[in-house]
């Protein structure tokens, strides 16, 4: 098991159902290719101070069907650049899920997460036990097990590593 447990704070909670991730950078910025520039515009409409508060390893929390619509890669490229280590959501839209898992970016489908977490709570994603631990509230929630291919892809850091291993 190469994958290390994720440990970080809930850096933001997207409460919107069917959240369109393109909104993170804004549609007008979706074609920006420079990652610094992209990161600079990310999250501004949600929290202007996000960049100052976020720390490497922090996590995002999402509601049901997170990533619905026509998701592009730049928003999460920006979020990873800002240190975000994964997304925990009530459930995911499959196109988004596939795209981000291929990037080696952990996505954790965890029904009940929205009510179990307040912003900035300290969380741990324990791959072995299949649980999300809220270290501040001392609570546990089980997440849905990953498909073998998805797990192997995260282990390998993304699609390329996974295909080399296969």
């Amino acid at each position: 098991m190469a994958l290390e447990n994720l440990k970080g704070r809930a850096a933001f909670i997207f409460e919107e159902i069917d959240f369109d991730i393109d909104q993170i950078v804004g549609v007008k910025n979706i074609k920006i290719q420079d990652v610094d520039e992209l990161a600079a515009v990310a999250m501004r409409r949600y929290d202007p101070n996000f960049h100052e508060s976020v720390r490497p390893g922090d996590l995002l929390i999402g509601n049901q069907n997170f990533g619905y619509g026509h998701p592009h890669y730049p928003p999460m490229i920006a979020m990873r650049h800002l240190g975000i280590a994964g997304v925990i959501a009530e459930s995911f839209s499959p196109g988004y899920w596939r795209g981000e898992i291929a990037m080696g970016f952990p996505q954790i489908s965890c029904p009940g997460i929205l009510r179990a977490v307040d912003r900035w709570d300290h969380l741990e994603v324990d791959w072995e036990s299949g649980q999300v631990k809220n270290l501040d509230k001392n609570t546990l929630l089980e997440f849905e097990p990953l498909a073998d291919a998805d797990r192997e892809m995260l282990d390998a850091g993304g699609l390329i590593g996974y295909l080399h291993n296969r």
Partner: protein
Amino acid sequence: MGLTITEKILGRAADMDVVKAGDEILAKPDFVIAYDFPGYTDVIFRQMEEEFGISKVAEPERFALFIDHMVPAVTPKEEDLHRNTREWGKKNNVPVYERRGIGHHVASELGYATPGAFAVHFDGHVSQMGTFGTLAIGVRRHLLEAFVKERIKIRVPKTTRVNLHGKLPKGVMARDAFHHIVRTLGPAACRFQVLEIGGDALQGISIDGRQTINCLAMFTGAVTAIMNPDETTLKYATERARIDLEPVYSDENAVYSAVHDIDISSLEPVVVVPPRPSNTQNLSEYTDKEVHVGYLGSCASGRIEDLEIAAEVLRGQTIKAGFQLHVVPTSQAIMQEASEKGILTDLIAAGAFVTSSSCDYCFGRAGVMTAGQRAVSTGTLNVRGRMGSPDSEIYIMNAAAVAASAIHGKITDPRDYL
């Protein structure tokens, strides 16, 4: 218990007697399909060589490439991409179908939608091929796997079955039926599943209409859609089929995660209100909203049935001065047929701007809007910025409604014109 058509197709593709939803299998796609697009094909071609040392794909007859976006090119960089694709195709013995229309639709015209076949693409709208009993899944960047390995690892999806009943009333189209399915089931009902559509209503829905419905499956959360072949689709697909396969069908006692029965007999024309592809409302609640641009085309709509009904609405009418109606047939074959039938003449006479087939009007590369403008559209999607400025809006509706709205520059119920 019985099996779904999806389980049967994937079982064969995995060389296994029986596979069931939830099983993780190694399946060999019969067809690997893609259009050239920056970040996808160019990257795949490069990674194949640089990361995996593969200079040519095995079994090139399984592969098909299309040039349908950025057609015609407007920058040298775009033409570079196309040239690279042509050269790669030549080197790999893989056909590159260029300027023949929207790729996955042309793939159906060319027989890649073989009943019983398993196909992959990076684009999810390839679900359109499900019309012919082909299981066609959009896998985004995982498509690389199909270029460098014979088999791709896939979890057999569960299936939600939707039975459509009744007959579409006049002026109400398959497009409306699809968005009504989303309204009824919700945008997440089929997450990670296959949407299997059947029911007596299909007898009254043409191949064009069925392609519309299947093409849009992703907006229910589904990974694809499929219909069991019937006489109509077998007739079309069998004579074109590129490989020799027995069509397969869901068993009567197949296991579905849910079955929904939806009556379409009393359906009204609908509008999908921006900026969400799931926001289906009755069009009658939005009539008189001022609109400036019309788009009649895309892989979802833009087939003969769509062009024909638009011509019926616009025959003898004149599009409102200043209103821009772009008509873009889904393929060149459709355009030719529409031309031979006089449909294009009617559309042009009314003031429509008719162009050769291209994906470019759908994703904001051609015919773009500026801030404050509003479109009526048969395109695939109505999210912010999809057709230009993030401060423009897209109201999705059926082809007849787009045509009727073009007459007045206002959202208009098409039923008064049919």
